[in-house]
């Protein structure tokens, strides 16, 4: 006998998957990265321990900081809770709230999250946090055209820009997934993910040099539970971007085709396995390239934009 989940339950399960397992994927990636460098590295579950430790500490707020400092991380976390409703994390069919927003909508919510963290950083009056916040906003604006053009490509290929439709188009046939426009869009989006998850070549995730920091710099002044929320949020953002990369563009297989409880639950380990595989790829990239100088990051952005633009051109003139 097959027990069916209510749509709302599957949807809640999508959010829960992201919330509960994002630190696992982050921890796994950090572990693999350390192993590749010949270090023993942190435990896979280290991120959970860190979060538990931070939640048990007190919150310190800088002298001049107001409520924005406290609200920023929480708003960002709420945004990251919202996005998994819109994207195919576990099921290959749209859940009731899945039509609430398209790729642009999800992008706006992620943008709001980044904005509120930057605002909290600006509130601190601490130079390094403000530096990080303003850099994150600048580079966020520079990478935005690439995201737009990837979305345009999706729109041209599928006639809509809902992530579920793009996933269905990628799943439809291998030939469709190997079309040049699709490959270019995937490549451009991959570069966008590299930027947005603060990986090499844009930023080195384990760096402690404030002058090289972009995303990491924003959180320097936060402590205790607020810092925990920020760290948890950034690992959720990473997993959300992995979802879009995997389940929308590259490998939308292994998703639950029905609401039977077994298939929805089975989709969780399959998805986490795929996310960890992507994590390994990112760890290898981290170890094979060096970080770009700050003023050379625009070259990286230009490359992403070039590829996204070509994807649109090829899909307009070549019919994909």
């Amino acid at each position, binding site marked *: 006998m097959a027990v069916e989940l209510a749509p709302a339950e599957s949807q809640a399960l999508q959010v829960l998957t992201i919330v509960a397992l994002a630190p696992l994927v982050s921890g796994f990636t950090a572990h693999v990265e350390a192993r590749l460098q010949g270090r023993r590295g942190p435990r896979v579950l280290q991120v959970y321990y860190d979060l538990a430790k931070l939640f048990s500490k007190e919150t310190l707020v800088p002298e001049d900081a107001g409520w924005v400092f406290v609200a920023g991380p929480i708003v960002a976390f709420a945004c990251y809770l919202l996005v998994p409703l819109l994207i195919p994390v576990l099921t290959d069919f749209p859940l009731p709230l899945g039509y609430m927003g398209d790729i642009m909508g999800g992008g706006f919510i992620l943008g709001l999250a980044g904005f509120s963290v930057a605002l909290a950083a600006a509130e601190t009056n601490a130079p390094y946090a403000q530096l990080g916040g303003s850099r994150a906003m600048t580079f966020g604006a520079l990478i935005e055209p690439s995201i737009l053009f990837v979305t345009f490509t999706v729109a041209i290929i599928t006639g809509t820009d809902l992530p579920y439709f793009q996933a269905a188009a990628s799943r439809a046939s291998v*030939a469709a997934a*190997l*079309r*040049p426009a699709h*490959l*270019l869009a995937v490549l451009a989006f991959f570069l966008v993910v590299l930027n947005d998850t603060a990986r090499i070549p844009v930023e080195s995730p384990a760096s402690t040099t404030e002058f090289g920091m972009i995303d990491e710099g924003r959180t320097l002044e936060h402590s205790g539970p607020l810092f925990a929320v920020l760290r948890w949020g950034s690992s959720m953002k990473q997993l959300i971007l992995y979802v879009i990369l995997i389940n929308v563009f590259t490998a939308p297989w292994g998703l639950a085709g029905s609401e039977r409880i077994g298939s929805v639950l089975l989709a969780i380990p399959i998805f986490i396995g795929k996310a960890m595989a992507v994590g390994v790829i990112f760890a290898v990239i981290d170890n094979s390239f060096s970080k770009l100088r700050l003023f*050379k990051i*625009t*070259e990286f*952005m*230009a*490359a992403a*934009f*070039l*590829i996204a*633009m*070509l994807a649109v*051109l*090829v899909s307009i*003139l*070549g019919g994909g």
Partner: protein
Amino acid sequence: MLAAVARPTTFRDVADALTLLVLLTEFAMLRSSLPRSQVRLYAFQSLAVTALAALVAARHGLGDLYVIAALTLVLKVVLVPWIILRVLRDAGTEVAGSHRLGVATMVLIALAVSIFGFFTIGSMPFHSSSLPTPALGLSVAEILVAFMIVVLRADVVSQAAGFFSLENGVSVVSLVVASGLPLVVETAFLFDLVVAVVVFGILMRVHHRRTDTLSTGVLDRLRG
């Protein structure tokens, strides 16, 4: 890729992907700061052109094109890069980052230029029987980007590599427009390239002997 070639439905996608690869390599040549890596990229681009020629030959059963593909492989993938790399090694100096503008700016300018080429050709009522139509627009875009390399790079090796890759773009155009050209004519084109390589090789050596550098930045002085 071989499996994909066998299926007629994906011929178009593979051809598009190869043409795109030629264009993307051109952009990579524009970006890369070392002339040495530019020459390697040129060899890679020539390999893509060879694959494209072989693909068209296999698709349409053109025996002559196989010969052209083989000649392209020997000349452009092996011989020309080898000659330029030798000139570079003999010169013993390295010009790093001879960009006249910032890399991001150059890429954006080249992108605008290639979009112009793309849409100009795309608006022409032209249908090729040998390759999908976007290939023409893509290869014209590639030629324009190669022009940008010659314009925006200030060292002799980059300019020569830009010129040779321009010839690659012309080869792709000729594959689209006239893949059934007689063997003699095609071979004559390749011979042209050999002459160009010899001339450029001599020019590079002369330039290096006179100015002790590969950069063209010193050429605006009246006395060397």
